[in-house]
C-alpha cells in the first residue's frame, strides 16, 4: 500500500450503513470497498456529512451513488449532506483487498500495478489473470470496455471474454 494515500475517514457508527450501499455498476462491490466514500462524519444530532469522489470524471453512477447514500442514511435515521470532491483524485489503490476479491469472484479481473497494467494494455506482456479459470494466457481485446473503468480481455485457454478493471494511478 502506498503510504501517501489518504485513508478513508468514516465514523464507526456509519460504516455498516454505507458498506451496504453497492456500486450501481458493480453490484458485488460496496462503495466503501470501492474507495468512493472518502469521508463520513457526524456533525451533531442526526446530521452527517459524506464526501464521495468519482472513479472517472464522466462516471454516470455518481448521482445514483449520492442518492443511494442519502436514502440509506435516511433509513438509518440520519440526514446526510453529500458532497462531490475531486481532490485527491481516486486511484485503483483505494479499492480495498475485500473489494479486489469481490471483483475477481464476480468475473472482473482486479487492477494490476501501474507498470504491469501499461504492459498489459499495450499488449507487451501477459499478466492479466482470467477471473474464470486463472490462466494468464489472456489477450487484450479492447482498451475500453463496458464502463469507463474497464478494459476488455479474452482468455486464450477457456476462451471466455472478461472485463479487466484498469489501473488508475
Amino acid at each position: 500500500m502506498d503510504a501517501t494515500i489518504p485513508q478513508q475517514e468514516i465514523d464507526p457508527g456509519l460504516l455498516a450503513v454505507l458498506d451496504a450501499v453497492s456500486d450501481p455498476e458493480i453490484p458485488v462491490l460496496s462503495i466503501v470497498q470501492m474507495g468512493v466514500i472518502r469521508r463520513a462524519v457526524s456533525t451533531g444530532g442526526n446530521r452527517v456529512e459524506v464526501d464521495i469522489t468519482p472513479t472517472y470524471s464522466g462516471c454516470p453512477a455518481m448521482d445514483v451513488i449520492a442518492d443511494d447514500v442519502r436514502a440509506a442514511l435516511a433509513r438509518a435515521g440520519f440526514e446526510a449532506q453529500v458532497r462531490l470532491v475531486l481532490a485527491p483524485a481516486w486511484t485503483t489503490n483505494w479499492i480495498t483487498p475485500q473489494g479486489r476479491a469481490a471483483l475477481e469472484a464476480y468475473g472482473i479481473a482486479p487492477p494490476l500495478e501501474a507498470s504491469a497494467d501499461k504492459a498489459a494494455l499495450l499488449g507487451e506482456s501477459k499478466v492479466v489473470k482470467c477471473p474464470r479459470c486463472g490462466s494468464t494466457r489472456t489477450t487484450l481485446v479492447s482498451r475500453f470496455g463496458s464502463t469507463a473503468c474497464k478494459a476488455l480481455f479474452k482468455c486464450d485457454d477457456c476462451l471466455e471474454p472478461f472485463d479487466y478493471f484498469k489501473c488508475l494511478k
Partner: protein
Amino acid sequence: MTAAAAPDTRTLADFVIGMADNDLILAQQLGKLCGHGPNLETDIALTNISLDLFGQVRSCFQYAATLLGNGATEDTIAFLRKEHEYRNVLLVEQPSLDFGHIIVRQFLYDVFHHLLLERLQFSADETIAAIARKSIKETAYHVRFSADWLVRLGDGNDESRARAQAALDHLWPYADEWFLPTAVESAAAAAGIGADLPSLREPYQRKVAAVLREATLELPADTHFRKGGKQGIHTEHMGYILAEMQSMQRTYPGMQW
C-alpha cells in the same frame, strides 16, 4: 517568479469555459459516433472517451457556474450560448469524415490536451488543479488509444495509410491554434493559473513527430495554420454541431434528466 495578481472572477470563468469548450465539442462529435464505429470495440472506445471528456467538461462548467453566479448552471453554459461565444479551437469541430479523420483529430487533440493538463495540475487555482489531476489520468489513456490506432492505420495497408495521410494533410493546419494565447489565457498564465501555451509547441511537435515516424506518415510541408475558434469565429461545421447539441434545451428550456 512572482505571479501577477489573480484575475477577476469573470476572467477566471472565461478561462475555465474556454478550456472546457474543446472537450465539449469533441465529446459531442464522438458521442454522435455511438453505433457507427468501425467495429464494436472501437465504437465503445470512442464513446468512452466521449464520456470522459463530458465528465471533465461538467467539472469545469460546474466550477464556472459558481464563479459566474447570477443563475448560471452547467447546462446554461453548455447549451445556451450562441456560436460566437464558444471558444473551442477549430480542430475539434472538423467533421468525422472517416475513421482516419476521427483518429487523426483525436490524436492531434489528445497530445495537446495531455501536455496542457500536465501544466494545469500545478495551477495556482485549486479547483483547476484538482480537475487537471483527475483528467490527466483519463487523457493518458486517450493518447495511448489514438496514437496506437494512428500507427495501425499509417503503418497498415495502402488504403488505411492513404486515408490516414489524407486526414493528416487536412487536419494538421488546425494543430497550432491552441498555442496562441488569448488575452484571457495570457492573464491566467501570468497569474500562475493557466499554462504558458507557446512553450507547449516544442514538446507537442516532438511527440507528434515521434508517433508519425512510427506510423510512416508525413506532415504536410509549408503549412498555413488556421485560427479563429478561440475568438469565436468558427468554421461552417460548428452551427450544425450546436443545432443538434442544443436542440433539447432550446425546445424544452430547463429540462433535466
